[in-house]
C-alpha cells in the first residue's frame, strides 16, 4: 500500500465525522429550504417550490434581525479589538505575577456563556440587582435596564465584550511576542515616542493577528445565540433578537422546520459574504502592500 493511500485511510474516520457535522447540515438545509415542513404539513416535508425563500425576502422580522445581528457583531468586535489591544500591551510588559494575571483575565472566556449571562441578569435586575442598588444609594431611582431596548442592547454588547476580550487580547499578545525587541529599541534611539512606536512599528506588524481576530470573532458574533437567549431572550420586543435566535425559535417554538432551515442557510450565506469578503479585502490589501514594498 502506498504511503499516500495509507495516510488517506488514517484521515477517513475524522473526515467522515466532519462531513456529518458540517457538510450534512448544509445539504439538509439546502433541501429543506425548498420544502414546507411544519405543523400544517404534519411535520412531513412537502415540496413547496421557492415559497420559503419568497417569504424570507418579505419577512420584515428577518431583515430587522439581520440588521441587529450585524450591528451587534460590528460593535462588539470593534470594542474587543481596542480593548484586546490594550490588554495585550499591558500583559506584554514585564510584570510581577504576569502568569497569574493572564490566567485570571482568561477566566471570563473559560466560563459557560449561560453562567455569565445569568450573572449579568442579576447585576441588572430591577429593582434588586447591585447596579440598581448602587443607583439608589447615590440618590437615583431604579431603572429597568433589561426592559429598555437601548440599555438592553448596550449590556448585551458589554457582556459579549467582557467574555471574549481576553481571547482577543491573548491572540494579539502572541502577535506582540513575534516582534523583535531590537526594532523597538532602534526606533526609540531615533527618538520615537511610545505612541509613534505603536503606530509605525507595532500596529503594522500586528495586522495579520488583528485580521485573524476580526475574521474569527466576526463569524462567531454573527452567530450569537446563547448570550442573547439567556440575557435578554431577544427582547424587549425583539429589539436584541439575532438571526440564530430567530432560526432557533422557528424550529423549536413555531415548529416550522422548512423556514428555520431557510433562515439558517441565509445566515450562513450572510456569514460567508461578510467573513469571506473581509478576508478577500485583507488579502488584496496585503498583496498590494507587498508589491508596493517590492517596487
Amino acid at each position: 500500500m502506498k504511503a499516500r493511500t495509507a495516510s488517506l485511510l488514517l484521515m477517513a474516520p475524522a473526515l467522515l465525522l466532519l462531513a456529518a457535522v458540517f457538510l450534512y447540515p448544509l445539504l439538509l438545509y439546502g433541501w429543506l429550504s425548498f420544502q414546507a415542513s411544519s405543523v400544517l404539513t404534519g411535520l412531513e416535508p412537502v415540496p413547496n417550490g421557492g415559497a420559503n425563500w419568497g417569504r424570507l425576502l418579505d419577512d420584515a422580522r428577518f431583515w430587522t434581525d439581520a440588521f441587529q445581528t450585524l450591528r451587534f457583531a460590528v460593535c462588539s468586535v470593534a470594542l474587543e479589538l481596542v480593548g484586546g489591544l490594550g490588554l495585550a500591551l499591558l500583559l506584554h510588559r514585564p510584570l510581577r505575577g504576569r502568569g497569574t494575571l493572564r490566567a485570571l483575565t482568561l477566566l471570563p472566556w473559560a466560563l459557560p456563556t449561560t453562567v455569565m449571562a445569568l450573572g449579568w441578569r442579576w447585576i441588572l435586575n430591577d429593582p434588586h440587582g447591585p447596579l440598581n442598588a448602587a443607583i439608589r444609594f447615590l440618590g437615583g431611582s431604579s431603572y429597568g435596564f433589561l426592559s429598555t431596548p437601548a440599555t438592553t442592547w448596550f449590556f448585551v454588547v458589554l457582556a459579549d465584550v467582557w467574555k471574549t476580550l481576553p481571547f482577543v487580547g491573548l491572540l494579539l499578545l502572541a502577535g506582540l511576542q513575534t516582534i523583535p525587541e531590537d526594532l523597538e529599541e532602534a526606533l526609540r534611539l531615533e527618538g520615537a515616542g511610545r505612541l509613534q512606536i505603536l503606530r509605525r512599528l507595532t500596529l503594522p506588524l500586528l495586522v495579520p493577528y488583528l485580521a485573524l481576530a476580526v475574521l474569527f470573532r466576526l463569524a462567531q458574533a454573527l452567530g450569537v445565540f446563547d448570550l442573547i437567549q439567556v440575557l435578554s431572550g431577544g427582547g424587549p420586543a425583539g429589539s436584541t433578537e439575532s438571526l440564530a435566535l430567530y432560526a432557533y425559535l422557528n424550529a423549536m417554538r413555531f415548529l416550522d422546520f422548512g423556514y428555520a432551515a431557510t433562515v439558517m442557510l441565509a445566515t450562513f450565506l450572510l456569514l460567508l459574504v461578510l467573513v469571506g469578503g473581509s478576508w478577500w479585502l485583507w488579502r488584496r490589501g496585503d498583496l498590494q502592500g507587498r508589491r508596493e514594498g517590492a517596487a
Partner: protein
Amino acid sequence: MRLLVLLWSLGPLLWQLRTSLLRPEALLAPLLEGNPWTLANYRLVLSGDPPFWRYLGNSTLVALATTVLTLLLAVPCAYGLQQQRGLLRWGVGLGLVAAAMVPTVLLFLALLEIARRFDLANDLFALSLPYAGLSLPLAVLLLRAAFGDLPAELEDAARLEGLGLGQRLRHVLLPLMGPALASTGILVFLASWNEYAIALTWISRNDLLTLPIAIARIGGGSVFTIPYGAFAAATVMGSLPLLLLVLLAQRPIVSGLTRGAVKG
C-alpha cells in the same frame, strides 16, 4: 492598571460569590443588621432533585468522553494530513479553517435530525459524537502543526529501524508532542464543557442535563420567582472547576489558543 484589569474580569464573578453567601432577606434589603452570611444557598442547591453536582458530573463526563474521542480521531488525521501534498492538503486545510469558524448553533437543526434518526437523544456518550465533530477542525489544525514541528529525520530513522506506523506514532512521535496534545485536549474539554445549543436540543431528561443548560433552566423563570442566592451558588459551583482548570493549565491553554491562531 493591573488592578483595573482584575476588577473588570473578576468583578462580576466576585459579586456572584457575595450574592451566593447572603441570606435571601439580605439580598433584598442591603442594610440588614446582624450576620447576613449563610451557606444555606449551597445546601439548597445541593439538595435539589437532582442535586447540583449531578450536572457537574454530566458535563465532566461529556467533556472527558469528547476529549478522548477527539484525540483518537484527530491524531491519525493530523498525521495523515501532514503526509499529504498538493490539492488535497490545501483543500482539507482550508475546509478545516472554515469549519472552525462556523457558529455551532447554525448546525443544531441538522444534528437534531441525526439524533432523531439514530435515536441518540438523551445519551451523554452519544452527545460526545457531535461534540467531537465540532472540536475536530481546531484539534487537527493544532496537531498537524505539532507534527510539522518534529524533524523529518526522526521518523525516517524510526522507519529504517523497521518500526511500523503504529509503533512510530506511539513510541517516537507522540511522546514528543506532549505539550501540543495537552493544550489541544484542554481546549476541547473546555469547549465541550461549555457547549449550549446542541446540548439544549439533544438532552431533555432533567437528570442528564449538562451544566450550562441546567443553569439556563434555573434562570429561565421570572426573575422574581428565582431564589437568586441559590442561583448564584449554582453559578459559583459551576465556575469553580473551570477556575481551577484555567489556573492550573494556563500555559497549555494560552499556547494552544495562540498556536491555533498562528498556524490556522
